[in-house]
């Protein structure tokens, strides 16, 4: 086959709008998700920058500083942080890695042609679109109305924060509550159906020879994530339905003036939302396991421990929701129970970090952009996890609850960890998905800039919070201004670095070098097919092997990629890491 001949791949297989809109190909569905999820990230991120900008001065400088505008300014701020939180949580972080990278890579890692239920997969996507549209409309409507007095039809706004606490949400919150909450309800179903699909796929589509303990760790991570998605999200569904019933019909489940119990709402809400944060972090950890191993040319250290700790994290994550209710009126007995359980949930995470470090140790580390993001993940996740312990201990939680300390903690795990891992995964699998290579220099610049920007943004917030600065306030005491200004500058650096990433990808798509089938030398099955893959993933069925047996490949400089090793195994005395590949990129 001559080089000029175009090889049919999943992108060129069928053409036309309908071939994408009605596709059953998991790879195309992954890309469809990518466009929407990254748009959500752009929206949420824009509002993050707006929030930070509005906090440059203690007195909401974006509005005139007089009592007439005070309410409006605060209402606008409330709408802004609600939009930022809700869009980021429900429309970006929860779907991002499972729906984009999971959909694309999971069937290929299984050597399969598709997920177990392709039509359900497409349905999940459309449910996501529907929920996302409704949700965004309501949230943006609130922003436009409070800031500019522009009234979108049905654009009511939501100012409760993404947590919808009662009784505020059932009585005084803005009218967008019902529609907004229904948007989140619909988004939840997308998550549930993706989870159903992945569990069934991993159970029934594993090839002969791929036992549970021969699966790549990304699959273990997706499996654990799917367990949580399937078990926890329905409780969110009923919580949101109850909220709507309370708001519309005044049933009195959560409203104490009607005989209800507002703390019960928080139990309901956090029973989902705490496992939800494990939905966010587990796939990220799976990506890191893959990236760290391949880009340091070393077999993953402690495979079984990482695999089992994924499942342990999924299950233990269900036992700790009450640590969000420590100051809400939860009883002392239950406070203590949840505090103790919260300490236990740190253990599987620590096991993983130890194993990743063990993998890096004496590895042959290539500082690819993916590896830089992964290393950033390890440090930032450690900080995020350790600061969680302060919040899990009862005595220290009391002064820290609802301060900037909490904000810094969860941004370290959601942005510093999950977003870094997402970017690592995108850089790692970009050649496979698009058949092009990105410019690595700009990728490295973006990674380092994001790391610096991120720490500049959020580290001061730990200090602020420890000094008592409350969260979700539009104004603040003047002594905190230096921290806020530093934080805002950091957010601008983050914005620039994320734009750099986006441009890097765009340039790669348009002008990047053609990617070989295996640019990094991984051994999991997705690297055994061409880049980009054909419609049916594999033209010849791949051979199942230990996914971390990296010595099965050798570097071929002529294609700047890795090819299966045909020569005899290297003699004894060879160091553990594969050092045959020269470090050129």
């Amino acid at each position, binding site marked *: 086959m001559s080089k000029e001949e175009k090889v049919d791949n999943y992108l060129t297989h069928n053409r036309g709008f309908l071939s994408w809109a009605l596709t059953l190909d998991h790879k195309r569905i992954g890309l469809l998700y990518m466009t929407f999820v990254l748009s959500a990230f752009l929206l949420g991120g824009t509002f993050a920058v707006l929030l930070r900008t509005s906090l440059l001065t203690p007195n909401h400088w974006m509005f005139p500083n007089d009592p*007439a505008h005070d309410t409006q300014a605060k209402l606008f701020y409330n709408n802004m942080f609600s939009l930022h939180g809700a869009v980021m949580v429900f429309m970006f972080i929860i779907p991002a890695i499972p729906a984009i990278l999971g959909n694309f890579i999971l069937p290929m890692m299984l050597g399969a*042609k598709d997920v177990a239920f392709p039509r359900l997969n497409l349905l999940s996507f459309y449910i996501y679109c529907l929920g996302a549209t409704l949700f965004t409309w309501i949230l943006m409507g609130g922003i436009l109305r409070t800031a500019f007095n522009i009234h979108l039809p049905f654009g009511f706004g939501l100012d409760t924060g993404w947590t919808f606490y009662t009784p505020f949400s059932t009585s005084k919150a803005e009218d967008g509550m019902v529609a907004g909450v229904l948007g989140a309800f619909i988004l939840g179903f997308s998550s549930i159906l993706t989870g159903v699909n992945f569990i069934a796929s991993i159970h029934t589509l594993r*090839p002969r*020879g791929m036992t549970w303990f021969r699966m790549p760790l990304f699959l273990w991570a997706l499996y654990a994530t799917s367990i949580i998605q399937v078990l926890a999200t329905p409780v969110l569904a009923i919580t949101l339905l109850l909220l709507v019933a309370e708001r519309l019909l005044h049933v009195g489940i959560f409203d104490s003036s009607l*005989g*209800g119990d507002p703390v019960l709402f928080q139990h309901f809400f956090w029973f989902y939302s705490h496992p939800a944060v494990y939905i966010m972090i587990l796939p990220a950890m799976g990506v890191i396991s893959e990236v760290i191993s391949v880009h340091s040319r070393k077999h993953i250290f402690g495979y079984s421990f990482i695999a089992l700790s994924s499942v342990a994290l999924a299950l233990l994550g269900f036992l700790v929701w009450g640590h969000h209710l420590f100051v809400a009126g939860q009883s002392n007995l239950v406070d203590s129970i949840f505090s103790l359980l919260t300490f236990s949930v740190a253990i599987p995470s620590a096991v993983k970090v130890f194993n990743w470090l063990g993998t890096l140790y004496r590895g042959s580390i290539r500082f690819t952009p993916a590896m830089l993001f992964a290393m950033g993940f390890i440090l930032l996740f450690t900080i995020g996890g350790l600061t969680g312990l302060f919040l899990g201990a009862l005595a220290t939680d009391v002064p820290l609850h609802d301060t900037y300390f909490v904000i810094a903690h969860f941004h370290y795990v959601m942005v510093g960890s999950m977003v870094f891992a997402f970017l690592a995964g995108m850089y790692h699998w970009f050649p496979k998905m698009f058949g092009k290579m990105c410019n690595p220099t700009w990728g490295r610049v973006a990674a380092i800039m994001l790391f610096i920007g991120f720490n500049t943004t959020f580290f001061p917030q730990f200090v602020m919070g420890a000094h008592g600065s409350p969260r979700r306030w539009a104004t603040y005491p003047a002594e905190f201004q230096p921290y806020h200004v530093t934080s805002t500058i950091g957010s601008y650096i983050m914005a620039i670095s994320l734009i750099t990433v986006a441009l890097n990808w765009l340039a790669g798509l348009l002008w990047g070098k053609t990617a070989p089938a295996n640019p990094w030398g991984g051994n999991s099955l997705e690297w055994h097919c061409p880049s980009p893959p054909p419609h049916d993933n594999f033209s010849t*069925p791949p051979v199942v092997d230990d996914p971390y047996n990296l010595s099965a490949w050798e570097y071929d400089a002529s294609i700047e990629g890795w090819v299966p090793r045909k020569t005899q195994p290297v003699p004894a005395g060879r160091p553990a890491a594969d050092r045959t590949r020269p470090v050129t990129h």
Partner: protein
Amino acid sequence: MSTASTEISGHSYAHGPGRHDPHLAHHFDTPEQQFTSAKLGMWIFLGTEILMFGGLFCAYSIYRHNHPLVFKFAAEAYLSTKWGAINTVILITSSLTMAWGVRAAQLNQKKLLISCLVLTLMGAAGFLVVKTIEYSAKWDEHVWVGSWNRYNGDNDASYATPPPEQPTTRPMVQIPAPAYSSVAIADDANTGLDVSQIKPRFNDSFSQSIQVHPPKQESEQKPSGEEQVDERYKQLSASDQWHVNTFFSCYFLMTGLHGIHVIVGMGLISWILMRTLKNEFSSEYFTPVDLVGLYWHLVDLIWIFLFPLLYLIH
């Protein structure tokens, strides 16, 4: 080298005799694998339904545990064990006919399958008829959901307040939503409202007809048993009186959500019926019948738990 490598993934790559089965999707190796996968997926979905209803059972447990006498009072006064038991028998029977229908599909017994599906549909319809009877009785007795319930604090003529000599002291004034250029969202404290501004929250005839006390010249709509109910209500403590509303919230939310699932189930069974009439099922391929059957059994399962928890509180 890789001593541990083994042969292949995907028989689906081979082109064997089974691959011409029109029902076999291209990414599955065998029809059995596809069927097992579909069943697994359905069981996971049923798990999610259990979790969803579980939330409602949680709310129920908490309120019943904290106010047992409330639940006893409300269930005895307003719920009919007879209708609940009839509904239980109807649903169990429809479960039987559904299971029989799945069996018929497995054994190529098309006519029997059609009869079973029709009978299941009739059972479902019967269930909804009984539910309508119950719900309309609740409406007549002024114990509907939310603010239409005489025990709900939102209801202007609610029993939840002590019967005052003067008009109710709970002003329920509608303050129009402030334009956002103006100040001050009113807070909870007494804002010096003019009591003469009192209007009922809802202007429907039901709200208007409810009296705070049962006056002697009440219209003949009120059944005589209601005085007995009032007597027993007054025997509850003040805190318990406040929570009678919560029983009805639980009742309507649980049976309402269950009812919605029954309606969806009817839709699914009708769809299966139409496909059966078009000869789409056989012993080779009956997966949709099986999966809809599982869903229907779950609906029955939930009712099996709802019935004693709501109706058999004595």
